[in-house]
């Protein structure tokens, strides 16, 4: 009876400590002005992606509401694109595409990168060597040509673009995860788990994965930013899905229509500003987490 009581106290104490740590970290994070700014901007865009389409009607296949690259009007505040579509609608709906790209590409990268990284670090040996050689090779090969080639093979619809960005992006994450795994697997609790007969899969899932994650969290946030920017660059270069409105597509049509020379600012200023704000919000948040993880950055 007394034993279980003590055990319960111990567990409560542990919970209390964890809560305290989380509270401290959150305090630290929110004392960083840039990070707070990033969260506010991100919240705004999430709101725009979720609520925007409910409040604002837009049909990507409704052409010639106005003249080609027509000036903004009372009703259509950001004018028209080269097919006479409503630009404001495309900007609002484009938020969904950018967030979707950022999130899904990052999920693929983290899933593949963590699987290979943890397995390579944990098992070591030949498997480790092979995986590390492959990631090294991928880190040397320039990504944009590879992405262009892959897009020519499997096609350019929206989900293919996500797949390509995910499958070309995992190696750096795998390397990062592997190096953290190497240090974590030496820790006492992993040894102890092994001693009482825990299986490899159990140890990797229960002990290594949860401890690797916080360490690479800031990198994961930066992956989102990178995916969003790369997608817009591809769209700008003409590799993208024309059936889905994205900011990158707007910028591409601005280039093709010579919007810069003709001064058709509505084609590239609003979409560009959204892109920069969303991307920098992730950079701000990412570096905010970095300061929590790396106390050296805080010491003045």
């Amino acid at each position: 009876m007394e034993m279980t009581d003590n055990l319960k106290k111990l567990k409560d104490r542990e919970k209390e400590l964890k809560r305290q740590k989380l509270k401290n970290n959150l305090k630290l994070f929110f004392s960083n002005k840039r990070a707070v700014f990033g969260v506010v901007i991100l919240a705004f865009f999430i709101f725009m992606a979720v609520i925007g389409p409910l409040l604002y009607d837009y049909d990507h296949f409704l052409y010639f509401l106005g003249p080609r690259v027509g000036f903004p009007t009372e009703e259509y505040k950001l004018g028209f694109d080269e097919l006479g579509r409503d630009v404001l609608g495309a900007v609002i709906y484009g938020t969904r595409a950018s967030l979707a790209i950022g999130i899904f590409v990052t999920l693929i990268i983290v899933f593949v990168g963590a699987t290979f990284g943890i397995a390579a670090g944990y098992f070591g040996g030949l498997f480790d060597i092979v995986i590390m050689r492959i990631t090294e090779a991928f880190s040397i090969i320039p990504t944009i040509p590879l992405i262009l080639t892959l897009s020519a093979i499997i096609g350019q619809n929206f989900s293919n673009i996500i797949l390509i960005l995910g499958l070309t992006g995992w190696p750096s994450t795998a390397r990062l995860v592997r190096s953290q795994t190497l240090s974590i697997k030496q820790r006492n609790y992993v040894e102890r788990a092994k001693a009482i007969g825990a299986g490899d899969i159990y140890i990797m899932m229960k002990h290594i994965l949860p401890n690797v994650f916080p360490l690479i969290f800031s990198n994961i946030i930066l992956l989102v930013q990178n995916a969003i920017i790369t997608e817009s660059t591809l769209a700008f270069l003409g590799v993208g899905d024309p059936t889905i409105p994205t900011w990158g597509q707007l910028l591409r049509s601005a280039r093709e229509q010579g919007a810069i020379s003709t001064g058709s600012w509505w084609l590239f200023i609003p979409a560009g500003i959204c892109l920069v704000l969303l991307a920098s919000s992730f950079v701000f948040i990412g570096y905010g987490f970095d300061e929590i993880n790396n106390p050296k950055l805080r010491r003045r």
Partner: protein
Amino acid sequence: MNMRFIINRLIYTIFMFIFVITLNFFLFRLMPGDPLTIVSKEIASSPEGRATMEKMYGLDKPMIEQYFDYIKSMITFDFGTSFNYKQPVTEILFSKIKNSLILGFASVPIGIVIGLLGGIVAAARRGKRTDMVITTTSMIIYAIPTFWLAMIFLMVFGVKLGWVPINGMATPGVDFVNNIAYLKDLFYHLAIPVLSYSLAIFGSYLLIMRGSMVDVFTEDYVLTARAKGLTEKQVIRRHVVPNAMLPVSTMIISSLALIFTGAFSIEVLFSWPGMGRLMIESVSRRDYPVMQASNYLIAVAVILANFIMDILYSYIDPRVRVE
């Protein structure tokens, strides 16, 4: 110099070559569409014509033989004829590479130098207002897509102010009297591409340099240096910067690829007749010989640059040789 280290890197470099060639070989066999039809629809439509063409391109041989032929042609830079230009691929490529290198060599070093200097200043004033301003600015610029920054510069300097031409590499239709006139014209055309390209990349160098220096500041040897009575300036110059440069230099090495590849969107935006634009064009026209040759050449350049820098790096930081 450790001979074993060099041999090790050399073997690795050869492995990389084979990897890239193999990847290319398989990727381009997965391409959709029938390449023979792209070359000539009429000949490929008749069975005899097809057979002749297959024989001509060596497609009738077994896969493994094709693979070795492929390695041979890649090593000897024999890339065949472009589907689109009907010219030897090598000729097209070399004329474009030159233009890309001009852009890359003019921009990348500027970006690196601004980034490193900015990083040093920010780290020296870490936590102060200057640091906050520099770091935040570079984070925003880091998040800006290169091509959008270039579009804004183009709008301001090219269209509104009219200081520089808005695209191309040389004023069309002009016969330059001498080299100086040509260089002056080139300089005007380079101005905005170089400005936007170097600005677009400096942010990441700045952030890495700052992070690396802030890390070094907490080392014991910095404390020792201060205890010896060195001024802050001396500490930074003699102890912090050299040590912080080690991780940064690996990043510089890996970014050398930017000189060859980074400017895709800039080349497209400014109609710069370089590799990036050629590749985009070859993708949309399904010009496979040009695509695979440029893939290969870019990879070769990057692999060789890596090899050279690995060797140089082992001089700067002898610790890597011990491994």
